[in-house]
């Protein structure tokens, strides 16, 4: 009984203190979902874009003109992070688009490993020791960005871009036979997804006191992939919920003093999920697909009353 009470008492503060990280992971998981779920490109090196974003942002907040003041520096770092990660995405997209399936996965994996290795040797940003970063982003600001990301994602999905990329994912031959430009569409989505991960990187850099390359290793890419698979490839709401749950999971395990078993629980969950519900918690279902909401909420904006 005591344990239960203690946990109920501590759960609130635990959630509160993890709010920054939860928000950042929601953005990250959504950005990966855009590449994996929406465009159907199997990328397993997503932490690479996150790292590019975080370090570009930190370069601005640590070495940039402090005279600008916190808020301006924060915004500048976000812009820098998104441009840098987006550019990395573009450079990677060019060779990647010739590849599918396993090959694409290997290239993205290689990319993330190269990025981390470069950071380990990048003296300007502290190399392996890492770099101390000023805290500029509040919980409120981070969640405002989460909201903004959700809106952007939602609106892209229910625009011509979202429709055409879905068609391309379903049948590339048929999609091209109606004139859809495969390379341009996939590049666009890949770059937007990478830039979004860059945004998460900037928020991470400005909400932690310290950045080190070890924080962007391969396990982080796998964690993101788990969120996307758990939530349901392609589902905005499913992936957001999965990101929240999986970020909280280690904190909750800590309350039970079970944090040593974290990876065990993680793997067991993934296994169970793949065996029992391979489409993820939500599949491609969205909150606004509920019949009650469907009557008032038409994602397409101009959809018929049928």
């Amino acid at each position, binding site marked *: 009984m005591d344990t239960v009470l203690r946990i109920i008492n501590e759960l609130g503060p635990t959630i509160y203190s993890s709010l920054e990280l939860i928000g950042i992971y929601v953005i990250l998981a959504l950005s990966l979902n855009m590449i994996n779920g929406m465009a159907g490109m199997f990328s397993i090196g997503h932490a690479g874009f996150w790292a590019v974003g975080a370090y570009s942002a930190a370069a601005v907040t640590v070495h940039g003109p402090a005279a600008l003041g916190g808020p301006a520096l924060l915004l500048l770092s976000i812009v820098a992070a998104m441009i840098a990660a987006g550019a990395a995405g573009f450079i990677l997209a060019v060779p990647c688009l010739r590849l599918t399936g396993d090959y694409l996965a290997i290239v993205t994996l290689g990319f993330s490993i190269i990025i981390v290795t470069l950071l380990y040797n990048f003296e300007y940003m502290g190399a392996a020791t890492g770099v101390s970063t000023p805290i500029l982003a509040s919980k409120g600001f981070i969640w405002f960005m989460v909201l903004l990301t959700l809106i952007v994602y939602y609106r892209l999905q229910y*625009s*011509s871009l979202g429709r055409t990329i879905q*068609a391309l994912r379903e*049948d590339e031959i*048929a999609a091209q*036979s*109606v004139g859809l430009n495969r390379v341009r569409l996939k590049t666009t989505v890949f770059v937007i997804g990478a830039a979004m991960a860059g945004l998460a990187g900037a928020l991470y850099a400005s909400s932690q006191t310290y950045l080190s390359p070890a924080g962007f290793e391969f396990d982080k890419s796998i964690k993101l992939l788990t969120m996307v698979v758990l939530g349901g490839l392609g589902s905005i709401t499913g992936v957001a919920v999965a990101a929240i749950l999986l970020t909280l999971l280690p904190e909750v395990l800590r309350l039970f003093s079970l944090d040593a078993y974290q990876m065990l629980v993680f793997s067991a969950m993934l296994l169970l999920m793949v065996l029992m519900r391979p489409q993820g918690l939500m599949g491609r279902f969205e909150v606004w697909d509920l019949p009650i909401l469907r009557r008032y909420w038409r994602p397409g*904006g*101009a959809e*018929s009353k049928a």
Partner: protein
Amino acid sequence: MKERSPALLQTESLGIQFGGLRAVDNVGLRVGVGEVVGLIGPNGAGKTTCFNMITGVYKPTSGSISLSGERIDGLHMIDVNHRGVARTFQNIRLFRKMTVLDNVRVALHRQVDYGLMSSLLRLPSFRRAEAGLQRRALELLSVFGLADRSQDLAGDLPYGDQRKLEIVRALATSPKLLLLDEPAAGMNPQETENLTHLISRLRQEFGVSILLIEHDMSLVMKICEHIYVLDYGREIAQGEPNAIQNNQQVIKAYLGEA
């Protein structure tokens, strides 16, 4: 023989080789402006392979393809479509998990004139364009009697309707030339009758020329002005429906030696 209208599509000594197999050899097809032309022949004669070469899925290894006098052989599928050629597939290739409406809206993508920013901010240009797409898509669907199924998933439609939806999707790209690969396959006589009527309407209302592969001879004989017959990748006959029906070589190819 009736005078034929000027050529929209013309292939000259078209051929393709897969390893040691000459799948199509020396085929010269011609589709005049406003014509409905049939391409028939036994299974494996190379009809769909011809379609795949015309639409840029395969690159021919010999010969040429021109559309309104301009060479289109070797162009990418996307560019072939942009030049005004659209097609359906023998083994239906709809976007099955998308709605009927979205299948058509996807194909109308070149009518989209808003950019990324406009869709993010949902500017008036976005709403106007989306409303226009919607209207146009429903218009096209209603020609084929599919408008009231616009919200169903394409994969849930009955077989015959899926074939029709493929035609609508192809039409949505405003083609000059429409290639139909066995449009009546799997349809019952009633549905085929209905389809025959629709195809004739297409030519009048949309001004498209049509090249079609079909095994249902009642349909082919009723609507085609000109017919080409392939066998083992070679053209064995061409002419008006009556002439083809009585051509000994064609009968032999279909029924075997007597």
